[in-house]
């Protein structure tokens, strides 16, 4: 009957003559699938973008696994993955590079989604998990573990997540005064950020230089030495948080209309925002635990995803793919650019992300519309 056509119907098709006698077909954007009382709306362009990005991620991933101080031809890489390893490749592919690429993908996806959530929540392209003090707290936790406890990598991760969560909760509570308004949250986040950075600076000026170096590497965000342990953590956490984030897309769409309108449409605004913050922080925690605070991924993924999908919505799932791709590409570049020295991935993401932002700026005719 009145099933929908694709989104390229022009306004002319909805001529009023059609609608005068019967209810006209409504060309809502996207495709609708209806079966037995259930209906789902899909955006074909978003799906296409995600599939395309996934393909790119696989290509770059394979390439990344094959290059290095011991180059391995891609055919061998594929063979190893399919269970037919050669003698050289098993260790390098299986133990060294594969986990690294997988962790990079997972972390990039987590940061990408987290950034998209926060940017939409504060309605500002400069929003990120930083504002809630999470990144600062995580940094503090990690540095404490490194400098005072000579901690192992796992312990550093735990310290980071704990520090980040504590800081985020503190900032949220401090900003709570009969509800949380965006600007007070930002201000408190800034104040907390200063206090935290002071403590970190204090420790860095008093610590032994080796610890300082280790801390500096962690603070930049690095995928060095990531093993299957980290892959497991990332996969499990993403399996839980990922679907939650996808569900959050609906809340974000509704909050898009402004708090009042959203409340008028039946959204429990306070609870929706809290859920969003929790999921956003959770994803950031996941990323930080696995790789440290990789710069810029959270920041650029959302805007890039929105431009690719050409949609006014927050695009959480595409942002995940964008983040993953950016991270994997950056890690490849970080490993090979100054070979044999390996740079931490966080440096490359900044070197990619910053010019991108500048480019966006010069192209933008309207201000504030990222």
């Amino acid at each position, binding site marked *: 009957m*009145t099933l929908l056509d694709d989104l390229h*119907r*022009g*306004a002319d098709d*909805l*001529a*009023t003559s059609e*609608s005068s006698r019967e*209810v*006209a*077909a*409504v*060309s*809502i*954007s996207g495709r*609708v699938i*209806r079966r037995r*009382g*259930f*209906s*789902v*709306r899909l955006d074909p362009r978003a799906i296409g973008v995600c599939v395309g990005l996934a393909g790119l991620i696989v290509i770059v991933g394979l390439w990344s696994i094959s290059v290095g101080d011991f180059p391995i031809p891609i055919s061998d890489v594929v063979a190893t993955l399919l269970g037919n390893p050669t003698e050289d490749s098993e260790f390098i592919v299986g133990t060294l590079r594969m986990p690294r690429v997988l962790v990079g993908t997972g972390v990039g996806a987590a940061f990408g989604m987290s950034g998209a959530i926060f940017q939409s929540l504060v309605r500002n392209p400069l929003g990120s998990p930083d504002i809630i003090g999470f990144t600062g707290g995580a940094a503090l936790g990690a540095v404490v573990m490194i400098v005072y406890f000579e901690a192992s990598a796992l312990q550093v991760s735990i310290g980071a997540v704990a520090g980040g969560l504590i800081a985020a909760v503190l900032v949220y509570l401090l900003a709570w005064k*009969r509800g949380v308004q965006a600007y007070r949250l930002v201000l408190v986040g800034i104040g907390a950020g200063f206090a935290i950075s002071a403590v970190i600076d204090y420790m860095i000026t008093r610590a032994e230089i080796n610890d300082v170096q280790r801390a500096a590497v962690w603070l930049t965000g690095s995928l060095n030495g990531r093993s299957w342990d980290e892959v497991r953590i990332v996969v499990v956490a993403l399996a839980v948080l990922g679907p939650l984030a996808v*569900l959050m897309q*609906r809340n974000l*769409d*509704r909050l*898009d*209309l*402004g708090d*009042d*309108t959203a*409340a*008028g*449409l*039946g*959204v*429990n605004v306070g609870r929706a925002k809290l859920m969003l913050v929790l999921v956003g922080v959770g994803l950031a925690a996941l990323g930080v635990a696995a790789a440290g605070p990789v710069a810029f991924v959270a920041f650029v993924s959302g805007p890039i995803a929105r431009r690719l999908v050409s*949609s*006014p*919505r927050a695009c959480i799932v595409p942002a995940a793919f964008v983040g993953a791709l950016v991270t994997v590409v950056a890690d490849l570049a970080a490993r090979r650019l100054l070979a044999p020295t390996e740079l931490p991935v966080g440096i490359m993401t900044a070197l990619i992300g910053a010019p991108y932002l500048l480019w966006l700026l010069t192209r933008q005719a309207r201000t504030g*519309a990222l």
Partner: protein
Amino acid sequence: MTATLTESNGTASARLRAKSVSLAYDDHVVVDHLDLDIPDGKVTAIIGPNACGKSTLLRALARLLRPSSGHVVLDGELIHKRPTKDVARRLGLLPQTPIAPEGITVVDLVARGRTPHQKLFQQWSTSDEAAVSAALEATGTSALADRAVDELSGGQRQRVWIAMALAQETELLLLDEPTTFLDIAHQIDVLDLVDELNRDRGRTVVIVLHDLNLACRYADHVVAMRDGGIVAVGRPAEVITAETVRDVFGLDSMVIEDPVSSTPLVVPISARRENAPNLPSTQRLGAETETRS
């Protein structure tokens, strides 16, 4: 402030009521112990000077604001005890400055109005489609369906927002200053639409308005507020008198009969201009108008 009731409406039913409601922002009391019944099936206009609390009152009625004392009752139950989705199925709201996401099309925006009826796996049912289609038609915006909302003119945009509230399919509709910033043709346009919605489907409409004369024209029931309290409540002809206008706005005026709609028409007399010599004095005219209606 005590409400001056010039007509008892005890016989009319009211699904939405405010009972001794006090509203405050951060210790600053905006509305103080106010009682108000919204008559069903009628258009109620809330008028008053800036910062008298009319928008605040509307927000409280729409469950956006929690009263610091007293309560708002919807269909016999405290509105704050009802789940948000439940309220959204009974009561639609158009806030003062609604935000449209950049680049959203008319159809998509109106479709958002179906949110209270949708679930995770019921994202776009046939009834959703029908409701949106009907809403677009009722507001005359079907031809604009694929256009981006930010490209539309002020009047068109306002009609689209009303379409969104319509798509919600509620029996009560609350509109917060829907005509401010619109030119006169568009103001009449929007209010005619509101009037039609009320007549055709018996929807209860509560509308906060700045323009006294439009309120008189389109409302069945007028609530005049000042300083957080109700000064007068009732039919426009009874409520809008020169005394009330002076009480509420501090403005001298002449109230005559609108030659088109036979409702009260407020003609302001500014402090600088003295009474025109040929016209009878204000008070006598006011008395004449009252007896005529």
